[in-house]
């Protein structure tokens, strides 16, 4: 079977062309995430401002699980009059809380009635009333009834979960990275993701249910996971930073570029099933835990991937550069660059200036320093003699 495939029908891509992934890895092309951090901080600041504004002015649409109340769902073919018919039928019952009856349609085949908390007798009355209008059996009307204190309990539990989780996560990050500043950067990125997700909820107006809560808490895990992948690489790159010719910022930026493809891939693969959840929940069912979990995870995962690259890494680099050992390291690099520049006056050659400090160091031409590129020094096997695979040698 494999033999049949050894001869490709038509080469689609030129063999010489190197993939973006490879060029990102080797540093042939790279984006200066750390250097352009002001741009991305601004982007995040705007998004966060919108989130906060949405929270303040629109507020969250709390589901009945939090408010207490009754929720009825009946399968019914929705027409223009459905909402009004159902509303008047329910109003005709003269329930104690007449003014607080919400009738909405979900998709084209479900009607939903929400009221204040009811007694069991009233529940039966409402079920029968809805069933009469819809021409279905009362037993086909699904309902949920939430006591007033239930929401309080759920909120308390969710708050406890959030705090416990944040503490555990901080502990985990600290134990894993052994670097306080990494923990801080990761936590800030986490908060960023949380706020964005909650803001999107306020903006779109999806109701907040226990499923939403659990979705939001799960995001904490995902956001962290992305950050772990990036920070892992940063730690690898900056392992022996004081003996290298690069600044912390430079190495951190290189790390982001190296894991960019992996990060993109894991995010896309993670988001795809969540998108399926969201779409099915929103368009097939119209309501329920699939939709609530789906949106929270969808927004949270994208925000998580974004923040680990654009927020967490620049923050970490910025904080580390403030440390005395990094300042010393930068000075050393500057002195070395200056000496190299002096030398190059005698030998007229392209002068590469080094800008370090606030921004990342532009790449120093290693040849100027008489050194081999850093990537070739990385712990790895020595280069094997270039030799084409047999299949290619045939050509």
């Amino acid at each position: 079977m494999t033999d049949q495939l050894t001869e490709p029908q038509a080469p689609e891509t030129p063999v010489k062309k190197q993939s973006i992934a490879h060029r990102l890895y080797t540093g042939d092309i790279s984006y200066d995430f750390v250097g352009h951090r002001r741009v991305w901080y601004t982007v995040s600041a705007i998004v966060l401002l919108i989130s906060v504004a949405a929270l303040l002015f629109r507020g969250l649409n709390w589901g009945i699980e939090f408010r207490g109340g009754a929720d009825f769902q009946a399968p019914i073919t929705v027409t223009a009059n459905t909402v009004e018919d159902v509303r008047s039928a329910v109003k005709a019952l003269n329930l104690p809380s007449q003014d607080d009856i919400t009738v909405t349609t979900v998709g084209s085949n479900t009607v939903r009635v929400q009221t204040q908390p009811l007694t069991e007798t009233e529940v039966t009355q409402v079920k029968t009333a809805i069933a009469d209008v819809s021409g279905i059996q009362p037993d086909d009307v699904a309902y949920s009834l939430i006591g007033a204190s239930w929401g309080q309990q759920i909120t308390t539990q969710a708050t406890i979960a959030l705090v416990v989780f944040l503490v555990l996560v901080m502990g985990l990050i600290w134990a894993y990275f052994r670097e306080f500043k990494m923990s801080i950067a990761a936590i800030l990125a986490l908060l960023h993701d949380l706020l964005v997700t909650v803001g999107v909820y306020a903006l779109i107006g999806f109701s907040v249910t226990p499923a939403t809560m659990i979705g939001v808490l799960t995001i904490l895990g995902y956001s962290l996971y992305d950050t772990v992948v990036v920070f892992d690489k940063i730690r690898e790159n900056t392992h022996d930073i004081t003996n290298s010719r690069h600044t912390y910022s430079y190495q951190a930026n290189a790390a982001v570029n190296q894991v960019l493809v992996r990060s993109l891939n894991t995010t896309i693969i993670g988001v795809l099933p969540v998108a399926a959840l969201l779409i099915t929940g929103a368009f097939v069912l119209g309501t329920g835990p699939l939709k609530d979990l789906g949106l929270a995870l969808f927004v949270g995962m994208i925000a998580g991937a974004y923040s680990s690259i654009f927020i967490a890494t620049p923050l970490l680099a910025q904080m580390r550069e403030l440390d005395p050992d990094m300042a010393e390291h930068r000075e050393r690099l500057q002195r070395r660059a200056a000496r190299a520049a002096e030398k190059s006056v005698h030998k007229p050659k392209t002068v590469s200036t080094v800008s370090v400090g606030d921004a990342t160091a532009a790449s120093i031409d290693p040849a100027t320093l008489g050194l081999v590129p850093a990537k070739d020094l990385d712990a790895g096997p020595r280069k094997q003699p270039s030799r084409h695979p047999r299949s290619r040698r045939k050509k």
Partner: protein
Amino acid sequence: MATTSRKHAHPLRTLVILAVVIVGLFTIMAVNRVWTPKLGLDLRGGSTITLTAANSTGEGSVDPDSLELARTIIQQRIDGYGVGESEVTTSGGNQIIVSAPNVQKDDLVRLVGKTAQLYFRQVFKEEASSGTATAEPTATASAQPQQSASANPTPTASSTGNKRPLPALPTPQPSPRPTVAATPAPTMDDMLKWTPSARDTSDFDAFQCGQTSPTPDVVDQPLITCDQTKSYKYLLGPALISGQHVTRAQAAVPQNSVAYVVTLQFDTQGAADFETVTGHLASQTSPENQFGIVLDGEVISAPSVSKAIPGGQAQIEGSFTQKTATDLANVLSYGALPLSFEISSVENVSAKLGSDQLQAGIIAGLIGLALVLLYSILYYRGLALVVSLSLVVAGLLTWSMIVLLGASMGFALNLPGIAGVIVAIGVTADSFIIYFERIRDEVREGRSLRTAIETGWVRSRKTIVVADSVSLLSALVLFILAIGAVKGFAFTLGLTTLIDLAVVFFFTKPMMTLLGRTKFFGEGHRFSGFEPEHMGASKAPLHNSQRKRGAVAGGEA
């Protein structure tokens, strides 16, 4: 092709062991004849009622034993109601969750939510009920006299201290019986002087077990009711002692005895009342010397009293078995439970909505799976084979675990649970990506593909474990702290994360080692996902040709 393994890695052996484990899991399923997971009520229709217990003595936590006892009582109550397959579980330390599949009866909520009421009442009449006299007397029956119609109702009206409608009044159209107890409560003396009215007696004569009792269960009113087997009917006086005064009830075998008894311990107030009441009862003739122990309007036991019992300690004798004695003791203890319950939520899903939700869950899962596979085929080409096979293995493991956990631990898959499984498709695939990308990185750094598969594994292993630990940690925290149905999400997410670890370690890695030895993958064929131009490492030697030649010369060091 892959017959010799270079190092300590034995990919084939690992794969075979994994296959044996999966076959084993499916064999267990076959033996038990369960092939589908137990579905939650939101997927097949039914009612879920969540009750929250609070410590009725004020602040303080809920005692787990008390909660468990309350659970047992509620279970008995529902079983008595005739709801098949219902489940009553405790959750979160202060909740009782009642699940009844395919039940649309609204009065289930009332039944579950009502407070258990345990009272000691005096028996005035006891007769076999002719209506539904099918069941034989219970095991506790020997505590009750078999039959005694020797009632001598003295028609002297009691003092007006008790405010019930007086029986002596010749009311042609009987007024409805009161449904609430009078305040202030009548004194013990008044209640002991109480005797049934003519109306009570005629109602009792007309009453048959199985009918609705003519008397509501009100503390200071008489009660006409039956025992649990509905074979005896009773006319009982007002409640003399409330079950709240029972501090302890236990099933025990006394010394020098072989039969079980139920011992009772009253609090100070209860002990005093109990002494007064037993003194009164002992002077009566059968059946009026009997106590009716009434729980939720049903006679649990009706022991007779032969002498006044001081000290607040009593013992009910009869031909108890261990079970019947324990059951009675549990019921008696219920009055001592320092718990009050509130209905927190009622979730009623119609069968139609249930099947719609199940369908939607399955659709979402299939779409999610298809999208992931499509993306991995586009990006990883031949490696998508590894991705799909790994997902199939993960799917088989997940399915069998959910089925088996449903059969053994009663784990029911609900809609949030399905969502957890779907989200886990991404988590699982993420692990492969971390590994694959690491292999590519290694190749870019100049390693041969075969070496890269090994070194890439060593380096990505740590990242995968950390990532999965974070996921597992969140699942664990959510599972412990979540309330209600969303627990299902945390459970399946945690389960599938563990399965993901197993799959990556015991399937994907050995599979990659094996595939690395094939020509298609090992030589980086253009559709293998390791083709040089795809990774951009065209200059790097993909295939370790040295090793290939070395195989003849005795292998590489």
